């Protein structure tokens, strides 16, 4: 009898059903996620006693003043956004042909195998993959050895090595959304296009690209935000390069200046929010 009463009550009160269902996720979102962001925002207004390293809980814009007046921070910021954009472009250029091949050219029975192969690197440890790239970029490593007969010097450790390694790490995250987008593209459209006399290039430009555009944007969100937030790859293959994420990590871990790190963290947050806002209009966030 009691169970029926609860059922009836819930049936009549739609709002309560929704509230109960969403309670846990909203709590997680509001408190754990947004709450911690809010705490970080507030701590960016604090400062640290320069001698003892203890936090001084008085509000001031000193951290932001330093970020704006010292040129090195804007250099680091521009460099980091540049790396994120470069990684996104490289991954996009690599992922589109691969996704096209898997979804349209491969026979159906091989498709799942190849998708599994694309996913397999994600099972390997992030550090193992990055250290593998470190030994490849090292003096006397594989890349230097391959380029030697052509008389070209390998890039060694640095910005190029960081970009290439990041592009490698995030490629599966770009291939999968684009593959999903292409999979939804009916083959009849492609046949119709060629019936009307379009060349392969024209079909790609006018039919395929506009339809998978939201999928490309969705994949780019992954690569952009993951690259902007990465602080380990640059420490391993980056040589002396500094990116915004590892400067934040250095200020938190080693310098113990949490408020300054929080102030610096506002930059990638703003960059990604800006990117998401621009991208929203493309419909990628709904269709995907």
């Amino acid at each position, binding site marked *: 009898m009691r169970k029926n009463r609860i059922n009836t009550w819930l049936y009549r009160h739609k709002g309560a059903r929704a509230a109960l269902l969403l309670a846990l996720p909203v709590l997680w*979102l*509001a*408190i754990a996620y*947004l*709450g911690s*962001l*809010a*705490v970080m*925002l*507030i701590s960016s207004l604090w400062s*640290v*006693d*320069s*001698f*003892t*390293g*203890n*936090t*001084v*809980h*008085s509000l001031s814009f000193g951290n932001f003043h*330093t970020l704006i007046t*010292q*040129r*090195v*921070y804007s*250099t680091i910021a521009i460099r980091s956004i540049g790396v994120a954009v470069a990684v996104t472009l490289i991954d996009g250029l690599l992922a589109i042909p691969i996704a096209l091949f898997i979804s349209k050219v491969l026979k159906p029975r091989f498709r799942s195998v190849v998708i599994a192969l694309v996913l397999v690197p994600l099972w390997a440890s992030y550090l193992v993959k990055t250290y593998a790239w470190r*030994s490849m970029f*090292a*003096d*006397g490593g594989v890349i230097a050895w391959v380029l030697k007969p052509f008389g070209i010097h390998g890039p*060694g*450790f640095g910005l190029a090595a960081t970009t290439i390694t990041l592009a490698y790490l995030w490629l599966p995250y770009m291939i999968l959304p684009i593959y999903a987008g292409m999979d939804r593209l009916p083959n009849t459209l492609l046949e119709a296009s060629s019936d009307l006399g379009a060349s392969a290039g024209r079909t790609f430009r006018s039919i395929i690209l506009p339809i998978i555009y939201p999928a490309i944007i969705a994949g780019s969100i992954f690569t952009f935000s993951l690259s902007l937030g990465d602080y380990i790859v640059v420490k391993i293959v980056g*040589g*002396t390069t*500094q990116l915004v994420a590892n*400067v934040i990590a*250095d200020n*938190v*871990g*080693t*310098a*113990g*200046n949490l408020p300054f790190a929080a102030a610096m963290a506002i930059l990638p947050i703003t960059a990604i929010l800006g990117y998401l806002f621009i991208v929203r209009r493309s419909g990628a966030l709904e269709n995907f």
Partner: protein
Amino acid sequence: MWMRTKKIVIAALAAFGLAIAGATAGVAASLPNVAMLKSLGKGEGKLNIIVWAGYAENGSNDKTVDWVNPFTKATGCVVNAKTAGTSDEMVSLMKTGGYDGVSASGDATLRLIYGGQVAPVNTALVPNYKTISPFLKNQQWNSVNGQMYGIPHGWGANVLAYNAAKVKKPTSWSAVFAANSPYKGQITAYDSPIYIADAAMYLMATQPALKITNPYSLDKTQLAAAVALLKVQKKNIGEYWSDYTKSVQSFESSNTLLGSSWQVIANTINGDKKVTVATTVPKEGATGWSDTWMISSKAQHPNCMYQWMNWITSPKVNAQVAEYFGEAPSQTLACAQTADKNFCTTYHATDAAYAKKIWYWTTPTTSCLDGRGNICTDYAAWTQAWTSIKG
């Protein structure tokens, strides 16, 4: 959807703003009052310490190098040692309150003392303290007003390490500071703002017009000169190092041929027998460290920590650590226990005059350490200068 999110954000911000506004401020310009342990009790069975690489060996790096397991057998305290790469890391880790003690260098000790992170040490509870070198006791970096805040561990210099096969023995730090270097891209430097003192020490010899008397005591002009020198050096640097295993790997793969390093790194590399690395103290001198074991003010296992401090400064163990790491032991009786009978002579372990010549890591403060007044740059300024040097 967007408006809803905005409202949630504002609400959260307000809520947390109110919560945090009630928090206490944490400035300690004066010495915090921290209680000192009066008597030793039974070991608690566990010990969490923050250590420099090579200070708490348990046989995992080299089967014959182990003084942690014998400690556990003797006292019952199971040791959990966290290795840190820089003094900044150590200060940050101590602030979390989850550790019983730390092997702090002189550029961390005063920060920890004035930050209230460490307690004064009752030297009567550490029997081996009596025979520690007298020139390490009651120093500027490990004591305040005559009260010791730690037990001296050992001291040494930041040496210039170089690949013996590919680099001719350098006699001056110009090997890493000169603008035109045959080793461009294969030089390394310590990745910490405290390295600025190394540049300042070099300038003491090469630009005497700057009138630098203490490399940790730099006014704005002197700091700017050191920063300029380090920016020139950056063009020749392949990698900065703070993680000693990465430094070892870097030397072994010949990505790094020379640079500022520690004797323990050279010893580890030579032990792996892939490359041979030699070390030297160039003519301009060296910065270095004088390490002190300090006990946390929030130590959960203080008895085990005191037992550890007594163990690590006992003659046999202090000799073992010093020989493995490549530093001068603080324990005078350790010299009779070293495997190499000339060890203490080589490292000038009991030579007070030599010990005075090393520029030990010290926290730079606005109040000049050489007594010029409040015109010097502090560690915060050094940290920001370091970020701008790395570019």
